[in-house]
């Protein structure tokens, strides 16, 4: 069951991906990854591990948002047919 869900995510048409990415709150993404990854303020340049953490965090959050978008659309259409 999980493999099918994954396949759906990859095969999304570009326009749907674009629409979803415009709905994603970029401010939230930025603040989250900053708060989760950056704790050390002894230097002003980002450390390598902080950089890696932020990259992973951002990618992960975007993938998560795409998945949520799919579920959201499903739940939305289920609710519509129930009316």
């Amino acid at each position, binding site marked *: 069951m*999980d493999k099918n869900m994954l396949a759906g995510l990859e095969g999304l048409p570009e326009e749907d991906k674009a629409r979803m990415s415009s709905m994603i*709150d970029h401010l939230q993404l930025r603040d989250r990854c900053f708060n989760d990854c950056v704790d050390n303020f002894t230097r002003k340049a980002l450390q390598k591990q902080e950089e890696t953490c932020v990259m*992973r965090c951002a990618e*992960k959050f975007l993938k998560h948002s795409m*998945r*949520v978008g799919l*579920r959201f659309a499903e*739940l939305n259409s289920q*609710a519509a047919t129930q*009316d």
Partner: protein
Amino acid sequence: MAANTTPAGIDKEQAFGMAETEMEYRVELFNRLGQTCFNKCVDKRYKESELNMGENSCIDRCASKYWQVNSMIGQMLSAGGRPPM
């Protein structure tokens, strides 16, 4: 006379306003759902950029439950009137 799809008593401007509000509500709901389920389901250590199987399942179930709670509350607030969706 041209066919009118808006319900009687509501002019086009009102209908547009309602649709705009509805859209804002949807976007807000999407963002809140995403935020909440990320907090509940994703390991903050970010050991990798992929979502693992456990996280995927958690996200799916979380979205479903969040949606149900949202509907419940919407119904309670509208005093047992029609469901908000």
